[in-house]
């Protein structure tokens, strides 16, 4: 998009913004809370801060007062922007419910212009109120107790307030595109309200512990989340998605049909071999990019673990490997790993880990799945680092302890992570011509194909190798290393 196109888009978007802001200014249900939260509430917080500071000073606990003032500043900024969620839901899905969206969609406005116009309209009045509230609160503090505060901290809170408004509104757009009524959108908005409540609680802890640098990380995380939500919103806020359905329904039959057609496939080829050729291999090809990302992430995990080893050394007695080679086999037998039941146990442990990664990934656009799958490789890197400190080659460690079963287990982890990333990706950017639900079900079918067709067989082989091959190879390596 060129600068002139961007300017044109913004000018068209502002037509919508102006109308909506004007409309809000005529609605006492929006004006009343904004005025209260802008003027009355900051003054109340001033009073509270003054009283609290005076009270805790009597007991020599000035630190409580020092921490309370910036905390209340954050609250003063947050309360008005919480209105932006309601305005956004009303603006996006309320218009749909009142049928005033269709004339807008019939006009030459592009989806992007409408999206930006409505986003700005939902953000500007609450943000203005938040800034005004912060100014009133800070002015009050200066006049009453002479508190001026650290400019960086004030900047952090203003930036946090702004980004939180942006995150809430962009999340509200995503929620709105999936609802056909304000009621349904309000119910779905608990997916925004609950995480935000937790975030505010976390921020409160940060403020009271005065770990203000953490606020920058929160800001960064919120910005990244907002980018994802905006990407989703831009993708989902289109005429087709907005007017393509009239009622919210869970059509399990249709969902199953979508999943089944994507899992079994409709092409030629019979039997398991046909299914692999027709469905599994093309799915693997489709997963090339997330597979590449997973390989990179696991490589980073190994490197990070390896470089942490010198910083966190294991106790010397734990690293006594002089007779470990001899004890190793006995230890494994004692804990029952050197048997088929040990293989079954390992298989289910690994399966549980991958299932957990999938479950976490579904709720985090795949991010938590990647982190969880990185952890064991990070540990492997860490132990390789410890071995290096003992003079054993890290390559030898990997060959002896990891590679025999890792040859199967690591690709299984890579593929699971890739399929979960794709599940997350399908939410951020549904394939063209498909709804959010269709895209997600298709990605779920891909995950199921990969899990059933590749990951589970790999885990079976990995478990057998880990029990019957790895100990043998590891013992040889340890014996060689122990001299």
């Amino acid at each position, binding site marked *: 998009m060129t600068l002139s196109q961007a300017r044109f888009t913004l000018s068209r978007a502002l037509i919508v913004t102006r109308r909506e802001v004007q409309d809000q200014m005529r609605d006492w249900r929006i004006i009343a809370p904004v005025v209260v939260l802008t003027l009355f509430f900051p003054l109340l917080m001033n009073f509270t801060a003054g009283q609290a500071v005076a009270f805790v000073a009597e007991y020599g606990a000035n630190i409580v007062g020092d921490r309370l003032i910036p905390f209340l500043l954050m609250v003063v900024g947050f309360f008005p922007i919480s209105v932006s969620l309601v305005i956004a839901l009303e603006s996006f899905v309320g218009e749909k419910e009142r049928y005033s969206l*269709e004339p807008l969609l019939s006009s030459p406005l592009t989806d992007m212009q409408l999206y930006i116009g409505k986003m700005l309209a939902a953000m500007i009045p609450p943000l203005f109120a938040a800034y005004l509230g912060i100014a009133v609160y800070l002015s009050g503090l200066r006049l009453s107790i002479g508190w001026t505060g650290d400019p960086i901290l004030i900047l952090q809170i203003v930036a946090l307030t702004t980004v939180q408004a942006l995150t809430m509104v962009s999340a509200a757009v995503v929620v709105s595109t999936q609802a056909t009524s304000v009621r349904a959108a309000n119910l779905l908005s608990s997916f925004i309200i609950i995480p935000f409540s937790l975030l505010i609680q976390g921020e409160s802890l940060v403020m009271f512990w005065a770990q203000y640098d953490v606020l920058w990380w929160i800001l960064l995380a919120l910005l990244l989340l907002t980018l994802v939500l905006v990407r989703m919103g831009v993708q989902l806020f289109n005429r087709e998605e907005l007017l393509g359905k009239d009622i919210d329904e869970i059509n399990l039959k249709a969902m199953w049909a979508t999943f089944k057609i994507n899992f079994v496939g409709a092409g030629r080829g019979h039997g398991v071999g046909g299914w692999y050729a027709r469905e599994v291999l093309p799915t693997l090809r489709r997963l090339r990019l997330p597979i590449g990302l997973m390989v990179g992430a696991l490589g980073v995990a190994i490197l990070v673990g390896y470089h942490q080893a010198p910083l966190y050394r294991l106790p010397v007695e734990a690293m006594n490997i002089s007779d470990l080679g001899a004890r190793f086999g006995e230890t494994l037998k004692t804990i029952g790993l050197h048997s088929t039941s040990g293989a079954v146990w390992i298989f289910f442990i690994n399966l549980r880990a991958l299932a957990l990664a999938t479950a976490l990934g579904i709720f985090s656009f795949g991010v938590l799945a990647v982190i969880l799958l990185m952890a064991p490789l990070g540990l492997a890197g860490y132990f390789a680092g410890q071995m290096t400190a003992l003079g054993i080659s890290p390559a030898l460690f990997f060959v002896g302890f990891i590679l025999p079963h890792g040859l199967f287990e690591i690709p299984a982890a890579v593929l699971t992570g890739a399929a979960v990333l794709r599940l997350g990706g399908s939410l951020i950017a549904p394939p063209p*011509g498909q709804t959010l639900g269709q895209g997600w079900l298709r990605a779920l079918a891909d995950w199921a194909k990969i899990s059933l067709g590749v990951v589970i067989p790999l885990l079976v082989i990995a478990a057998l190798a880990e029990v019957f091959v790895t100990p043998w190879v590891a013992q040889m390596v340890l014996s060689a290393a122990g001299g």
Partner: protein
Amino acid sequence: MIETDGLTKEFENFRAVSDVTLTVRPGEVLALLGPNGAGKTTTVRMLTSILKPTSGWARIAGHDVARDPAGVRANVGVLTEHHGLYFRMRSEEYLDFFGELYGLAPAARRARAGELLERFGMKEAAGKWLGEYSKGMRQKLALIRALLHDPPVLLLDEPTSAMDPQSAKLVRDAITDLRADHRAIILCTHNLNEAEQLADQIAVIRRGRIIARGTPLELKHEWLGPAVMELRASTSLNGVVNELRDLVEIMDYGPDWVRYRVADPALTNPQVVQRLTARQVPLLTLSEIPRSLEAVYVQVVEADQ
């Protein structure tokens, strides 16, 4: 000009519109009739580039609905099924907002809005909030919104549904004027009298398919059979009825009247009159018995069940 060919729209688990082919030339009105849920709104939404056709194509004033949505929307005026006004606005600012969206200059949109408000008798209500408007007034304002940018194509969904008889006549007259002004108009309506009065073409849509299409006369001929004529004499027919049986199909008769069905009235009626004259029976009136579009519609829908 509105052209569609094989226009089809499928949603997740059903086909809302199937293989719709239509042509509406400038200066023509096509009335799209059909039960609720037949696919009228989905068709209109595809013609406005709001929904993308699953297959087939449509062109509005030469702009393809799939490839050039901006061109389509700039050339089409839509009166949606629900007026969808903003209740905390006044008519002039509402029209100014839409005029700006359609790229009209401030002076042009003020002039156009003023002209249309005047034409539809809405000038006096300009100071009121739209939330205070009656249903009919809201409908008229929505129609004004559709006409604001002077589009060559109009898609009107139930334009008179909430109006009092006087306002409805005003709107019907406006549609007639718009047709005379060489606009292509699709009119979705349940009011069959209105459709018959305004439409050059009728299309009946059911379960997403066009099940009947043609001029009102063609449809009547196709679905209700040949025209039925009523002849009245100023004296007794005096046995002439039997002499007409080789020309027409007699349906009923009385001492001084006869009702008959005729496949080609333009050719046969003069012969009927000739025979009457030859028998010195003075002709009082000869007219076609009016047959309603409602009768056609009922036949068409029943035949499709």
